[in-house]
C-alpha cells in the first residue's frame, strides 16, 4: 500500500488529516484523597465514577465538625446525620466505625454533639433532614422520579448518587457506611500525622485516559443517543394508527450514520462532549506533526494534563519522584505548558480495565475477612496485625497476615493466574493492602530479582536472540513483571547488576531492564544526556522535533501542507540504544559535521556558527521544502460548475507581435498546460498561475447549457490559483499534480510545489544538546583553519557556548565520534552507559591523535600554526525548520488597511514594522521628537484628499 514500515501508527485519518488522540491525565477516580483545601483545612474528596454518573463527594472539617458536601445537596450535611440516615443510629457504633481510640473519639465529639443538638436521633429524622436539602432545578440536579415520598428520595440519593461507586445492594448501606467512616478516619489521622495526607501530584494517584477509553465514552454516549432516537422514531411510527400492512420493522428506523458522524466529528474537531458526565473537552485531538520522524513519535507519547495552563502553580508542573521510569524527565515544553504536557518514558505501559470479580473471590479465598462479618472495632485492631484490604479503592475486608497475602497474589500474578497488570501494594501508614486492577495506571516492566539473583539468565537471552522466545514468555514465566507506580514504590529496584553484587544485594526485589528506559523517545536522541545540564536536554527535546530530515520512507508520495526534507541526511555517528530501537538510522535528520571549537572572525558571537562554503557546495544542509496548494472545483445548484481552462490564446494581432509582448511582461500563464493545470517539472515564478480556474458568472438561475457542455468564455470569470512564495527564491518547481474528488465538490486538485534550498546566512542549526545557533558567516574553504591531515572544519563553533551551558555531553559526543571515525565503527552515546571518555581517548591516541582530542591547526589566512590547540571532531548537527527566506521581511511603503488607512500587519500581508514604545523612547531620548512628529503624523496619517464615492 506504499506505507512506511517505520510508521508507528497510533493515529486516526479523518477527512484526510492524521489526528492523534492525546493521552489525558487525570486524578484517579474512586479513591479517597486527603489533602488541604485553599483555606489550609484538611479535607477529603472522592470522585466517584460509574458507568452511569460521575460526581464528587467532599468531606470538610468546619470548626471541628465533619460535614459532607455534594453537588446535589444545597447545604453541607453533617457526617453524623449521613451515618444516621444510612441506618447507623447509635453514636457508639458511629464512633467504633471511625475508630474508638481516644483521639478519634475526641475529634468526633463535636460532630456527634451537633447532631444531637439538631435533635436528630433516628434514621427517619436524618432522612427528613436530608430531604429538605436536596437541590432542585439548576445544574447538578438529580432527576427524581415522582410517586415517591421525600424520605425515599433522600434514601435513594444516599444509595445511588452519593459516593455512587460504592455499591448499595437492596439498601444495605454497610459498605457505604464503612467507606464514609474510612474517609473521616483518614481525615482525623491526617490531622495528627502529616504522613496520612495524600499528595495530589503523586503519580500513583493519576490515571491516564487513552484513545480507547475516550472512544468508549463517546461510543456509549452515541449508543444512548441512537437508542433514544430509535425509541422516538418507533413511537412516532407506531402512533400512526392507520392500518399497516406488515409488522413494524425497527431496523428501518436505525440511523446508521450516528456513530460514523459522531466519531468523525469528535476526532476531527477534538471536541469531546459526553452529556452523561457533563464532559465538554476541547483539544483532545491534534493534527499529527510530520515535521520529522521524531516529532511524529513524540506526539504519540504526549500526555496532556487537565490543569489550566494559566494557573501559576508549581505542584502539578514539577517533576515528581514517583514519575521515575514512567514519564520522561526531560521532555516537556517550555513556557505556559511546562510540566503540564509530559511524555511517556520508553517502556511505559498504560493498563486497561481488568475484571474485579475473580480477584475479589481470590482475596476471600486467601483469607480476607469480609467487612460485613466483622465488628467495627476489629477493623482497626492493630494488635492482631489486621490490615484493610482494598480493591480498586473499595473496602473488601481485613486480612491478618498482609505480607502473606501480598506474596501469594504476587506469586499468582507471576505464574499467570492473576492478570499481569494487577498491582498489589502494602500501605504501611494506612495499614492497608491496596489491590488495583483499574484502567489508566502507568506501569513498566522490571526484571524480577529473587534473593539477590536475577531470574533472567543468559540462556533466556540467547533464546530470545535466536527467535525461540517472545516477550510474553518472559512475563508468563515470571522473569519480568509489570509494576505500577504504587507497587514500584514498595519495590527495591537495583539499577545495574553491580548493585546485585553489592552488600545490599538481598534487599533488592527487582532490577531495571535498562536505565535508559527512564527517558522518552525524544530524549533518547541525545548522546550522553547524563553529562548535560538538565535544561539542555529539555531544550533538545523541543528542538529534535523541528529538525529536518526524512519523515517516512513514503515521503515522496505524501502531499502534506508543508514538508521539510533534507537531501543528504546522515545517520548519526554517535548513536544511542534508543535510536536503534526506533530505527532512527533509517529515517535520520541531520549531518555529521566536522566541528572545530574555536573563535573565528567575530561573526560567531552569540552562538552564531561559521560554516564552510565548500561543505555547502557539496550538499551540507541542503533541504527541500514541499508545499501543498489545493483548488476545488465547485458545482452549483443550477448545474453549472467551475472549470479549468487552457491559457488564453494570443489574439491574432498580438500573435504577430507576440515576441515583443512576451518579453515586456512576464507571462503568468507560462505554466498552464492545455488542461488548465500547471505542468509538472516547470520552474515557478512569483504570481504564476497554478490552476487557471474559471467560475460561471451566473450560479443561481438556470442556464441554457447542460452540465457537460462547455460554457462560453463570456459566461465565466477567472478565479485562478496563483503561487505566492518567498520572494527572491528562484529554485521552485511544480513537483506533482494530483487530481481527486470528494462528495461535495466536483473535483479537487492538489499541487505539490518543491523548492530546494542551500543554507544561507541566518539559517538555524542545532546540535543534539540544546545548542542552537544561526549561520553567522559562510567562509570559503581556503580561509578556514586546517589540521596536519588537511582536514577543514565544516562548522566552527564559538567556545563561549560551553561554560555557561555545561553541555559536557556534546564534548563527549565529539570525542566518541572522532574515535568512532578512526576505528571505523559507530560511537555509542547511550544514556548512563556508552563509550567512556577514557576509551575514546585511548582510541584517539592509537591513531596518532591527541589524547584530549585537541589538534594543532594552521590558520587558513596566514598559513602559520594557531597559537592554541583546537578541539575538532564530528558532531551531529540538525538543521531546524526556521529559515531566513521564510522570515525576512522589510517594507518602506506598501499596502494599507481600507478602514483606518494604517499599514497592514504581518509578513504575509507585506505589513509595516511597528515602531514601538521603546523605539519611540529612544528617539525622544535622542532629542529627535520632531522627527517622530513628522514621520508619525505628517507623513503617515495626514490626507489631503479623501475620495468619497
Amino acid at each position, binding site marked *: 500500500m506504499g506505507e512506511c514500515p517505520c510508521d508507528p501508527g497510533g493515529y486516526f485519518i479523518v477527512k484526510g488529516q492524521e489526528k492523534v488522540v492525546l493521552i489525558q491525565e487525570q486524578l484517579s477516580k474512586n479513591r479517597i484523597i486527603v489533602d488541604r483545601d485553599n483555606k489550609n483545612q484538611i479535607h477529603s474528596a472522592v470522585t466517584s465514577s460509574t458507568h452511569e454518573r460521575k460526581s464528587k463527594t467532599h468531606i470538610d472539617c468546619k470548626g471541628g465538625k465533619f460535614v459532607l458536601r455534594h453537588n446535589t445537596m444545597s447545604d453541607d450535611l453533617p457526617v453524623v446525620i449521613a451515618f444516621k440516615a444510612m441506618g447507623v443510629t447509635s453514636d457508639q457504633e458511629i464512633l467504633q466505625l471511625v475508630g474508638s481510640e481516644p483521639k478519634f473519639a475526641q475529634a468526633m465529639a463535636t460532630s456527634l454533639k451537633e447532631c444531637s443538638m439538631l435533635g436528630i436521633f433516628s434514621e427517619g429524622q436524618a432522612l427528613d433532614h436530608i430531604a429538605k436539602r436536596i437541590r432542585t432545578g439548576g445544574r447538578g440536579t438529580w432527576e427524581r422520579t415522582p410517586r415517591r415520598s421525600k424520605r425515599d428520595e433522600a434514601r435513594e440519593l444516599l444509595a445511588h448518587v452519593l459516593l455512587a461507586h460504592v455499591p448499595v445492594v437492596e439498601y444495605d448501606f454497610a459498605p457505604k457506611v464503612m467507606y464514609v467512616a474510612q474517609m473521616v478516619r483518614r481525615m482525623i489521622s491526617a490531622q495528627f500525622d502529616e504522613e496520612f495526607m495524600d499528595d495530589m501530584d503523586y503519580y500513583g494517584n493519576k490515571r491516564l485516559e487513552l484513545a480507547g477509553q475516550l472512544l468508549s465514552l463517546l461510543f456509549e454516549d452515541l449508543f444512548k443517543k441512537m437508542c433514544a432516537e430509535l425509541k422516538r422514531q418507533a413511537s412516532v411510527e407506531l402512533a400512526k394508527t392507520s392500518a399497516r400492512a406488515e409488522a413494524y420493522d425497527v431496523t428501518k428506523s436505525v440511523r446508521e450514520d450516528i456513530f460514523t458522524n459522531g466519531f468523525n466529528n469528535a476526532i476531527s474537531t477534538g471536541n469531546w462532549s459526553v452529556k452523561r458526565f457533563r464532559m465538554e473537552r476541547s483539544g483532545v485531538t491534534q493534527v499529527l506533526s510530520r515535521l520529522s520522524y521524531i516529532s511524529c513519535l513524540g506526539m504519540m507519547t504526549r500526555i496532556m494534563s487537565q490543569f489550566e495552563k494559566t494557573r501559576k502553580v508549581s505542584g502539578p508542573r514539577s517533576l515528581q519522584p514517583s514519575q521515575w521510569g514512567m514519564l520522561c524527565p526531560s521532555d516537556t515544553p517550555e513556557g505556559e505548558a511546562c510540566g503540564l504536557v509530559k511524555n511517556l518514558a520508553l517502556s511505559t505501559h498504560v493498563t486497561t480495565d481488568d475484571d474485579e470479580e475473580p480477584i475479589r473471590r481470590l482475596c476471600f479465598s486467601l483469607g480476607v475477612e469480609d467487612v460485613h462479618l466483622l465488628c467495627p472495632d476489629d477493623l482497626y485492631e492493630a494488635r492482631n496485625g489486621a490490615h484493610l484490604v482494598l480493591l480498586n479503592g473499595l473496602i473488601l475486608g481485613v486480612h491478618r497476615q498482609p505480607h502473606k497475602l501480598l506474596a501469594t497474589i504476587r506469586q499468582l500474578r507471576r505464574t499467570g493466574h492473576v492478570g499481569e497488570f494487577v498491582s498489589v501494594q502494602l500501605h504501611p501508614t494506612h495499614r492497608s493492602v491496596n489491590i488495583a486492577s483499574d484502567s489508566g495506571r502507568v506501569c513498566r516492566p522490571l526484571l524480577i530479582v529473587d534473593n539477590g539473583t536475577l531470574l533472567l539468565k543468559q540462556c533466556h537471552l540467547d533464546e530470545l536472540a535466536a527467535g525461540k522466545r517472545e516477550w510474553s514468555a518472559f512475563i508468563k514465566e515470571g522473569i519480568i513483571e509489570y509494576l505500577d507506580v504504587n507497587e514500584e514504590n514498595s519495590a527495591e529496584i537495583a539499577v545495574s547488576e553491580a548493585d546485585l553484587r553489592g552488600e545490599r544485594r538481598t534487599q533488592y526485589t527487582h532490577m531495571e531492564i535498562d536505565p535508559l528506559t527512564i527517558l522518552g523517545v525524544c530524549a533518547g536522541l541525545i548522546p550522553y544526556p547524563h553529562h548535560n545540564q538538565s535544561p539542555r536536554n529539555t531544550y533538545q527535546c523541543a528542538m529534535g522535533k523541528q529538525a529536518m530530515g526524512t519523515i517516512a520512507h513514503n515521503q515522496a508520495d505524501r502531499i502534506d501542507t508543508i514538508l521539510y526534507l533534507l537531501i543528504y541526511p546522515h545517520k548519526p555517528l554517535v548513536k544511542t540504544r534508543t535510536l536503534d530501537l526506533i530505527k532512527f538510522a533509517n529515517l535520520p535528520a541531520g549531518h555529521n559535521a566536522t566541528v572545530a571549537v574555536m573563535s573565528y572572525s567575530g561573526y560567531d558571537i552569540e552562538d552564531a556558527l561559521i560554516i564552510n562554503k565548500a561543505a555547502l557546495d557539496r550538499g551540507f544542509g541542503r533541504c527541500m521544502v514541499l508545499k501543498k496548494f489545493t483548488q476545488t472545483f465547485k458545482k452549483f445548484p443550477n448545474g453549472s460548475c467551475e472549470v479549468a481552462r487552457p491559457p488564453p490564446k494570443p489574439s491574432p494581432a498580438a500573435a504577430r507581435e507576440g515576441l515583443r509582448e512576451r518579453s515586456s511582461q512576464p507571462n503568468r500563464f507560462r505554466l498552464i498546460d492545455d488542461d488548465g493545470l500547471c505542468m509538472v*517539472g516547470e520552474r515557478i515564478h512569483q504570481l504564476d498561475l497554478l490552476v487557471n480556474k474559471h467560475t460561471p458568472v451566473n450560479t443561481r438561475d438556470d442556464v441554457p447549457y447542460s452540465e457537460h457542455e462547455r460554457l462560453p468564455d463570456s459566461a465565466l470569470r477567472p478565479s485562478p490559483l496563483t503561487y505566492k512564495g518567498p520572494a527572491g527564491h528562484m529554485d521552485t518547481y511544480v513537483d506533482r499534480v494530483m487530481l481527486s474528488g470528494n462528495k461535495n465538490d466536483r473535483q479537487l486538485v492538489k499541487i505539490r510545489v518543491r523548492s530546494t534550498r542551500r543554507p544561507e546566512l541566518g539559517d538555524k542549526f542545532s546540535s543534539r544538546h540544546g545548542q542552537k545557533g544561526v549561520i553567522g558567516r559562510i567562509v570559503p574553504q581556503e580561509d578556514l583553519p586546517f589540521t596536519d591531515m588537511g582536514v577543514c572544519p565544516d562548522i566552527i563553533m564559538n567556545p563561549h557556548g560551553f561554560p555557561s551551558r555545561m553541555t559536557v555531553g556534546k564534548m563527549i559526543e565529539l570525542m566518541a565520534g572522532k574515535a568512532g571515525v578512526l576505528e571505523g565503527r559507530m560511537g555509542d552515546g547511550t544514556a548512563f552507559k556508552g563509550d567512556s571518555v577514557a576509551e575514546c581517548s585511548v582510541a584517539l591516541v592509537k591513531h596518532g591523535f591527541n*589524547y584530549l582530542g585537541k589538534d*594543532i591547526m594552521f590558520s587558513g589566512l596566514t598559513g602559520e600554526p594557531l597559537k592554541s590547540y583546537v578541539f575538532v571532531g564530528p558532531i551531529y548537527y540538525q538543521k531546524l525548520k526556521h529559515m531566513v527566506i521564510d522570515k525576512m521581511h522589510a517594507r518602506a511603503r506598501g499596502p494599507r488597511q481600507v478602514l483606518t488607512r494604517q499599514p497592514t500587519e504581518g509578513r504575509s500581508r507585506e505589513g509595516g514594522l511597528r515602531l514601538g514604545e521603546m523605539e519611540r523612547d529612544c528617539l525622544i531620548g535622542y532629542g529627535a521628537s520632531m522627527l517622530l512628529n513628522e514621520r508619525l503624523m505628517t507623513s503617515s496619517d495626514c490626507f489631503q484628499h479623501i475620495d468619497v464615492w
Partner: protein
Amino acid sequence: MKHVSEGGLPAHLEKQRTRMFVKNAAPEHTSTVEAASAYAASGLENSFSIERFRRDFRVEIQSLSAEEAVFDLIGIDAALANAFRRILLAEVPTMAIEKVFILNNTSMIQDEVLAHRLGLIPIRADARVFQFRGDPPDDPNEYNVISFRLQVKCTKQRSSGASPGPAVVGCAPSTAGSGASSDAGLLGSRVTSGDLEWIPQGEQEERFRDAPIAPVHDDILIAKMRPGQEIELEAWCEKGIGKTHAKWSPVCTASYRLLPEITLPKPVTGDDATTLKGMCPTNVFDIEDLAGVPTATVARPRNCTMCRECIRHPGWDERVLLTRVKDHFIFSVESTGALPPETLFQESVKVLMQKASDIATLLKDATAGQQSEP
C-alpha cells in the same frame, strides 16, 4: 637549518625563530618573524633577498602517484606556502558540469538535486585548453564547453529462460530485508558516472584523441532507478575555479604540515626508553644499544603526528622536546583526477605569478592615471 639563518643569534633565540614548540598546554613560537629589521640589533639580516632564496630553497619529492603528491618545500615561509595551498584549493581552474538540460527525468531524484550531483563529478579534461565563458556567458563553442549526454532507462531484464536463479535466493539473511529493493534482474537501475557519454563538439574529438574526455571515475552513483523510470539529459561542462563553487576545486585537499623535530635533551635510557617507545602510537622512537645502555633514539621523526602522547604524563615534557621546523613544509596535494597533482602545483605557482604580474601592471596603470589627473 643553515639555509635560513645567517647566524648571529643566541642559540635559544635562534631556536625560537626557526622552530615552533609543541607544549602540553599550547604551541609556542608559532609565528614567523617577518620584519626585515627584526633582528637588526643582533646583527642578523632578516630582509628578503632573491639570491639567498635561490640558494636556500629546496624541493624534495617524497612520493608521486596519479592521485597524490607529497613533497617537501624547504626554506620558504608560511605566507608563500599558504598562498600555493590557497590557490590550489580555490583558484586553479578545472572543468565541471555547470548547465544541465533535462529532457526527461522520471527518477526519484529531483531535477535540481540531479544537476547538483552531476556538477560534483570530476571530469578528466585539461582546463588549460579551454576558456572561461565569462559573465554574461559567451556563446557556447568547442573551446569553452564540453557536452555530455546521459540517457538511461531502467527495464526489467528479460529472463533468459531460467528464473532469477539461486544467486538471488541464496543471499545472506542480513541482506534479505533489502531483498525487495535489490537490483537483481534490473537493467539500468544504477545510473553511474560511466553512463555519461561525451559528445565531442567541432574538432574536440580530434583535439582530445590522445586523452578522451570522460568522468575521472565511472562508478560514481548518480541515481537509482526502478523499471519504467528514465533519465535523459544533456550536461555542459564549463571552466571555473574553486572559489565560485567547490566542484571546480581541482584537489580533494591540498595542505601541508611542518616537519616534526623531536629531541631528547638528556638521554632516555633503560626502562624509560621502553616506556617512551611504547607510548608513541606512530612508532617514532627506537631503542639502540649505546655503550651497553639501551637508549631511546628518534628514528622516524616524520612519522610524528604531534599527538603529544609522549609528553602527556608528568615529567615527560622536560625529557622530550617536540618542535617543528617553521620553514619546512611537508606538502600534500590530492588531485580529484582532472590533472596529475604535480601539474596542479605547477599551475598554482603559475597562478600566483600571473597574479603578481597582473597587479604590477594594474598598479602601473593606476599610478599613471593618478599622476595624469592633476
